[in-house]
């Protein structure tokens, strides 16, 4: 177990190094420096600024400095907002992003799985048709369209929820719904097909034949075995919820990391772009590792060493 985790952590560090290198050189490949703008700076000021941020150093030195910064969890100052560090920007946005993201994950599990169960139990009857129809809609319609339509109907036309901001709990409803819409549908479909597959297994027949109550058959034998594929997709779910938050935070004007990221792109705030990208990558890899460990814990048949190879 410990060996596997160590091996995975080593892989993660390698991947992070690759990503840091890639983003660093990509950002430095952009023509023009961060202080080139319409308003010409006096050459003295420009060179002073370059010196202050270490931009006049040779590129390998800048690269090493940047790597040293990452190792010490210092992502550098923002080029756009004087006095603000990238660490501060992330610390600002993280609570909002995590809260909506976590609620969305809960939503995915708490809505998607029951929907799949209902559909599978009523195969080819109206609940199945309804769930599958809803799931097809949820999978096909892009998140930003869902978000704008929800905003139009529930915030503008009906006025049940505020159009933006997170002042009270009602502000979370639409962002979380829009964020989780795709994955609720995806998980519902997956849970349904996985359950249907499990129902055909011999041990289900055995469980029924020996006289277990239907609830016991479903929950103890059917559900536990059919939820493994659902757990597997939770890793990608977390990853996609994070990228989904770019647009959701934009539409609902939530002050999360996604919004900071999009803003820093439009502002050409290079250190912020690099820092947030690396932070995202690290966050995602940790989440995927956690999901992988969870997976093994849920299904002891899977051996960690095997998965590592």
């Amino acid at each position: 177990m410990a060996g596997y985790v160590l091996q995975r952590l080593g892989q993660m560090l390698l991947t992070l190094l690759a990503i840091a290198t890639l983003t660093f050189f990509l950002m430095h490949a952009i023509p023009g420096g961060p202080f080139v703008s319409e308003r010409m700076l006096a050459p003295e000021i420009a060179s002073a600024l370059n010196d202050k941020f270490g931009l006049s150093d040779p590129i390998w030195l800048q690269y090493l400095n940047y790597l040293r910064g990452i190792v010490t969890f210092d992502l550098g100052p923002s080029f756009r907002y004087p006095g603000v560090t990238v660490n501060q920007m992330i610390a600002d946005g993280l609570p909002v992003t995590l809260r909506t993201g976590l609620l969305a994950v809960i939503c995915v599990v708490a809505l998607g799985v029951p929907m799949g169960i209902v559909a599978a139990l009523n195969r080819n009857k109206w609940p199945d048709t309804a769930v599958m129809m809803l799931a097809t809609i949820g999978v096909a319609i892009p998140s930003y369209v869902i978000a704008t339509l929800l905003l139009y109907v529930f915030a503008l036309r009906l006025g049940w929820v505020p159009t933006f901001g997170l002042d009270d709990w009602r502000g979370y409803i639409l962002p979380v719904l829009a964020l989780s819409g795709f994955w609720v549908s995806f998980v519902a479909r997956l849970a349904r097909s996985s359950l249907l597959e499990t129902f055909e297994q011999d041990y289900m027949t055995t469980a029924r034949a020996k006289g277990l109550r239907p609830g016991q058959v479903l929950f103890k034998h059917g559900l536990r075995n059919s939820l493994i594929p659902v757990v597997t997709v939770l890793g990608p779910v977390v990853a996609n919820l994070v990228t989904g938050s770019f647009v959701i935070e934009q539409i609902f004007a939530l002050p999360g990391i996604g919004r900071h990221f999009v803003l820093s792109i439009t502002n050409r705030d290079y250190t912020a772009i690099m820092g947030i990208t690396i932070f995202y990558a690290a966050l995602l890899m940790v989440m995927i590792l956690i999901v992988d460990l969870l997976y093994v814990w849920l299904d002891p048949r899977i051996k960690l060493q095997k998965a590592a190879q």
Partner: protein
Amino acid sequence: MTSEPIIAPAMWEKPDRSIGAAEIITTPSLTYWQDVRQRLWANKPAVVSICFIVVLIFGAVFGPLISPFSYFEQNLRLSNIPPVFETYRVSDGAGEDTRFFLNASNFNLYQISEGGQVEGLLRGGRKDIIKKSQSFEFGATDIALDYSSRPARLLRADGTELRPEGWQWNMTYLFGTDQLGRDVLVRQLYGARISLLVAFVATLVNFFIGIFYGGIAGYIGGKTDAVMMRIVEIISTIPLMLYVILLMVVLDSGLISIVVAIGSVFWVDMARMVRGQILTLKQQDYVAAARTMGAGTGRILTRHLLPNSIGPILVTLTMLIPSAIFIESFMSFIGLGVTPPMASWGTLTSEAVETMRAYPHQLFFPAAAISLTMFAFNFLGDGLRDALDPRMRR
């Protein structure tokens, strides 16, 4: 015991051994692809999706050519015109009638012809700011537009309210106009062009990079495979969207960069899938047979292994196309995609969000276009999967 025999005497007779009608094969035997086509045609949603995609392609290619409008031409006097309106009719007392409609969100009157063509903005008198009304003259008839209360009312000189005749579809701008007076329909068709272009590029990249990358990694195996797959793993640790955004920052937004950005990382899923297929297929006897006959790696790969995995490749492709379209419109939505005045479904939606309270039609049409396209590709993908491998159906 003379009961009725259980086995009737007729049943002891020898059966007729000649080939009966039931055993004659009446339909010609089908090849695999004929079978696939038959199953696909039996799938109603998939057929409808194919029709929709074909119509979309024709509309995107030829629509802008025959449209009298262009995607960038602005007409500020005819901005924010809805696709459907309630028409009014006023006679000027000399036998001439004027038809017009009231745009309830900006309080302008627009003249329309009998056929529903928008002819132009009606000029009224000075707006009375205090009483919130404006007068319009139609020959001898005076009409006052009273917008002091919502909804706005049209009043005759004697104070009675002018009643609308009925609803009519806008025949000049079938989908209405946007906030700069540009035709929404033609902009949507340009958006369809961009989406289809992105879909085409994604297909191409998947075919040429994804399939061969995966094929080579899977077939050669060993160290080559390990290195190639480690690269794929690094790329796929981060969501594709993040790469595309980073590349867009470097390349500056625009149609070409979005195509390059999607093209450079979009083959990863396909490469993985093909590698998995090749790994199982290369154990087959026909590969060994081909090798003993002296076929080279390239020949075995292109002539034996890839054609045998064409089914999963096609299915993966139809699943990847909508996600490419989605990424493009997503990027355009957050302002990193195509540059104005070029229209993409993403930019159309994001522009419409700003005015959606007053002009929901601007939001509705692009949202419907992208949703329907995603539906079509999803249904087509499901249909193809079921047709290519009926065992996968569930």
